[in-house]
């Protein structure tokens, strides 16, 4: 059965003004990607408005630029990719005032088995804070409906502020999996 949390995030992305989604896969966030593709009428990880991208900075370059035509791009990724994304996020998206929604699953805390990934994922909120990128955190303490509400409002917030907005979701002790 599909994860209610993943379904809620995907429905919220499409219920917002998001016009394009690019993703960098992870096993944790794959249910969100699959739901996005299914809702959009595609299959095998691809649909009209959803595409895989090769790396996080590439995704930032492509999806932020959707805003130049008046659309809103979104990226679905894992938080260990923020190290790859930060230069593009700051010198392009942030500096040129382009709205962008990012939903990233987290790998730096409870439920994570991989000792190495903590090294980049645990400090991600502080990295985002230090670079002036607004972020919101979700975890087991709120239900799937709340996750959807936050994602939808985060997309709205990105447009209102003309900035990237990041939603960090910890799937530990939800109906999703950490890794």
């Amino acid at each position: 059965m599909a994860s209610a949390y993943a379904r809620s995030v995907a429905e919220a992305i499409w219920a917002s003004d998001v016009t394009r989604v690019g993703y960098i896969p992870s096993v944790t966030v794959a249910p969100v990607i699959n739901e996005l593709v299914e809702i959009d009428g595609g299959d095998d990880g691809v649909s009209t408005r959803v595409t895989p991208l090769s790396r996080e900075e590439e995704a930032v370059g492509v999806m932020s630029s959707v805003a130049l035509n008046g659309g809103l791009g979104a990226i679905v990724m894992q938080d260990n990719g923020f190290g790859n994304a930060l230069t593009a996020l700051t010198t392009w998206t942030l500096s040129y005032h382009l709205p962008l929604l990012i939903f990233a699953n987290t790998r730096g805390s409870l439920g994570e088995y991989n000792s190495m990934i903590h090294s980049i994922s645990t400090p991600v909120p502080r990295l985002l804070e230090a670079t002036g990128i607004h972020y919101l955190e979700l975890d087991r303490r709120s239900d799937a409906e709340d996750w959807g509400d936050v994602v939808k409002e985060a997309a709205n917030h990105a447009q209102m502020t003309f900035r990237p907005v990041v939603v960090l979701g910890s799937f530990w002790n939800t109906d999703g999996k950490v890794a």
Partner: protein
Amino acid sequence: MKRFEALRILAELTDEHPVVVTCAATSRELASVKDTDNHLYLLDSMGLVGSVATGLALDLPEGTPKVIGIEGDGSLLMNPNVLPTGGYIKPDTLLIVLDNEVYGSTAGLPTYSSEVNLEKLAAAAGWEAGRAEDAETLTSQYKRLLEVTDKPAFLHVPIEAGNAADIPKLLIDPVSITHRFTRWLKTAGERANLP
């Protein structure tokens, strides 16, 4: 051919196109040749010209001329992901790479392009590739590649190393570039179709 000469030709050829331009000396030199609202200067995002051009091309307003990227070899090699991404997504773009085999704005240190054939790299990733070594072939190859619509196009332009002298820095607030470019883009399709 020097970069400045190539940019002088390209500034005229791309007059009605959205143009995404790589940072530092290339942006400065293009702006000194012609600073118009269709130029989207990436002031400090090395490697992103192809990515930005791809995102821009995804939902371009109807009738808007093809998106042009003006990139350098050092910048492309900093994010060569642009090539397989283009081969996969197939945006309607033309990426022009001015290749001087050095990081022109970074002390002239070498890039890989003296050993790596960028044109073949692009072709292997699914791009329609061409090469121009002088003013005449720059114009003819540009016009040929402009007609390609089923895949992204790539124009490899070997140029001499070195930057033009006495070109002022491009000290513009990036937000003002966004504003003027998006305002231009809204009516680019209509303008292109005028008799």
